[in-house]
């Protein structure tokens, strides 16, 4: 049973490490996407929305004429100059929504960027892994992440309530200063970012609350019309029903709708024009503003798509609890955050990642200390060490490989975006092999050195494969682009620092405990 507990706890820790690190990229997803599409330069001033809207509509009419819904994503906000369209095909069978596709368009020509801009999953694919993992069905992934998140919430609450005691009970084995420092680091990281950890964990569960705790909503508001009424009531009513396959009907022009939106919110403040049931009777057009406040409540205008008349204006207030829910989700996503707050979000996310990493290392070093007295379970500890090294240092190497693949895979390659992800997981998987192949102390050292190179050399790869190297970006004043290179450099230096740390420790150990047999005898006596 202790085995179940140990392995259960560790498994949760490994999943949470993945969730926290990939999730942290969610605060930088658009910035990462921009770096991964070096062909697109942020135009100083994108063309006005009124010019782009007809181009987007024309492209959709031509390429996705018969669809459940259309989306036109206008430039501005954090996405910079990016302009794209999306559409949903008609759903199969019982489903309410069809499959969604998205295509980036060139703002100047209104044509698809396929062939001129590399195909990439960008920052979105990376951060989406933090809740839907990868290579597995959506429902399974959400369930796994949910169980781990619940475990995390439990760990946080027990940590708060019985703080001193729990740490004494769980983590104190008082073996050596090395482990004490890990403990100190773990405490420091946990406590400093505690409000963030509570918020991010609880709100993470709230995102999927009706999947994890369906009993109340399923009894009082079963899926379908009743559920829609529920959402409308608690959140206010800027939702629209998915388009229906009704008779063909004439559409009202979109131009005047955009004009009305711009007169309300200002020039180029419109983020998205969404059309449900384009070209059908009962078509609806929902226009969203860019600005999302902390409540995730974007300004909206809802139009009758056939007559063009304004039906309603959002956001509606919703109920108090509905607002609480939206604030929690808004805090989780951090979309409202400006540069300074966004940086804090990133640091808090990294602190959470490091908290889990130090916890995992503590876990195995604690058991290694026990092992010195007890000859059983060599294999288990060795396996944990391998998996720890392969997760904590291996995942950053995998993510770096994702960016290397973005620069090095041929631009016109088939399934390029999928292969970027394959490269990430192949590289990550190989780090487990390295950890298995090498003796434990060497494995950490060598993986850290590899991680330092993988991250630290990214700016060089970027400079060699594009004309947007660090120097050029700084000269252009493109700090978003330069920021990516500088962060990669920073990550490389961090791993270099770890290399130095491990080498110093090894030297100290070699100096103080030179004769191995005596060391073993000492451990036995203790």
């Amino acid at each position, binding site marked *: 049973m202790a085995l179940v507990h*140990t392995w259960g706890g560790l498994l949760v820790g490994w999943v949470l490490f993945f969730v926290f690190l990939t999730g942290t990229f969610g605060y930088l997803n658009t910035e990462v996407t921009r770096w991964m599409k070096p062909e697109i330069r942020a135009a100083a001033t994108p063309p006005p929305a009124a010019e782009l809207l007809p181009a987007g509509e024309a492209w959709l009419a031509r390429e996705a004429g018969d669809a459940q819904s259309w989306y036109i994503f206008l430039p501005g906000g954090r996405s910079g100059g990016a302009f794209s369209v999306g559409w949903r095909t008609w759903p199969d069978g019982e489903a309410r929504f069809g499959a969604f596709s998205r295509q980036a368009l060139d703002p100047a020509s209104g044509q698809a960027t396929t062939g001129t801009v590399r195909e990439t999953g960008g920052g979105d694919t990376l951060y989406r892994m933090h809740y839907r993992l990868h290579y597995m069905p959506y429902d399974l992934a959400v369930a796994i992440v949910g169980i781990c998140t619940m475990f995390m919430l439990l760990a946080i609450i*027990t940590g708060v309530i019985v703080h001193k005691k729990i740490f004494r009970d769980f983590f104190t084995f008082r073996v050596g200063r090395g482990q004490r420092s890990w403990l100190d680091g773990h405490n420091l990281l946990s406590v400093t970012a505690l409000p963030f950890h509570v918020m991010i964990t609880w709100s993470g569960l709230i995102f999927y609350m009706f999947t994890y705790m369906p009993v109340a909503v399923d009894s009082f508001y079963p899926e379908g019309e009743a559920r829609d009424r529920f959402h409308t009531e608690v959140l206010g009513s800027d939702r629209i029903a998915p388009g229906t396959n009704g008779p063909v009907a004439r559409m009202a022009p979109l131009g005047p709708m955009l004009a009305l939106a711009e007169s309300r919110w200002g020039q180029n403040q419109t983020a998205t024009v969404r059309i449900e049931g384009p070209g059908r009777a009962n078509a609806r057009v929902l226009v969203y503003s860019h600005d999302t406040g902390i409540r995730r409540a974007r300004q909206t205008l809802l139009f009758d798509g056939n007559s063009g008349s304004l039906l309603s204006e959002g956001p509606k207030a919703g109920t108090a609890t509905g607002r609480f829910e939206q604030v929690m989700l808004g805090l989780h996503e951090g979309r409202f955050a400006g540069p300074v707050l966004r940086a804090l979000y990133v640091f808090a996310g990294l602190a959470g990642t490091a908290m889990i990493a130090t916890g995992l290392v503590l876990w195995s070093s604690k058991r290694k200390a026990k092992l010195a007295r007890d000859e059983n379970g060599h294999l288990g500890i060795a396996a944990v060490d391998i998996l720890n090294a392969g997760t904590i240092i291996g995942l950053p190497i995998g993510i770096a490989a994702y960016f290397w693949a973005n620069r090095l895979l041929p631009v016109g390659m088939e399934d390029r975006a999928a292969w970027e992800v394959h490269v990430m997981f192949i590289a990550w998987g190989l780090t487990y092999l390295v950890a298995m192949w090498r003796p434990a102390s060497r494995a950490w050292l060598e993986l850290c050195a590899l991680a330092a190179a993988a991250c630290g050399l990214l700016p060089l790869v970027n400079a060699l494969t594009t004309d947007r190297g660090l120097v050029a970006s700084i000269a252009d004043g493109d700090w978003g682009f330069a920021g990516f290179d500088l962060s990669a450099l920073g990550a490389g230096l961090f791993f270099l620092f770890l290399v130095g740390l491990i080498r110093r420790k090894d030297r100290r150990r070699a100096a103080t405990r030179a004769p191995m047999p005596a060391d073993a005898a000492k451990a036995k006596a203790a």
Partner: protein
Amino acid sequence: MAAVRRFTVSDHGLSVTARILAAVAGGYALTSLITFALSRLLPRAGMLQSEAVLAATIASFPIYAVIVMAVFHARSARRAWLGLIAGAVPCALALGLSMPTAAG
């Protein structure tokens, strides 16, 4: 959290299994019951039905966490199960009492 330590260090197989089962399954069942009971009873105190469902569901996660902690804090697995049942009875009673008025 002394109980937690006891079970990581020594393993009395059955008692530990019973406790984990109590925490995970029993705790989830009791949390579901409480969530359902709150969703039914809060509107009687003047809350909107939709509001009650949302509030109860949002609160269910900390509630579950507290129940799990209580299960591990209990002196024995038997007491943990008894505690879960003791928590379920008033919820079930309150739900039972609210039934006739709900129907009528």
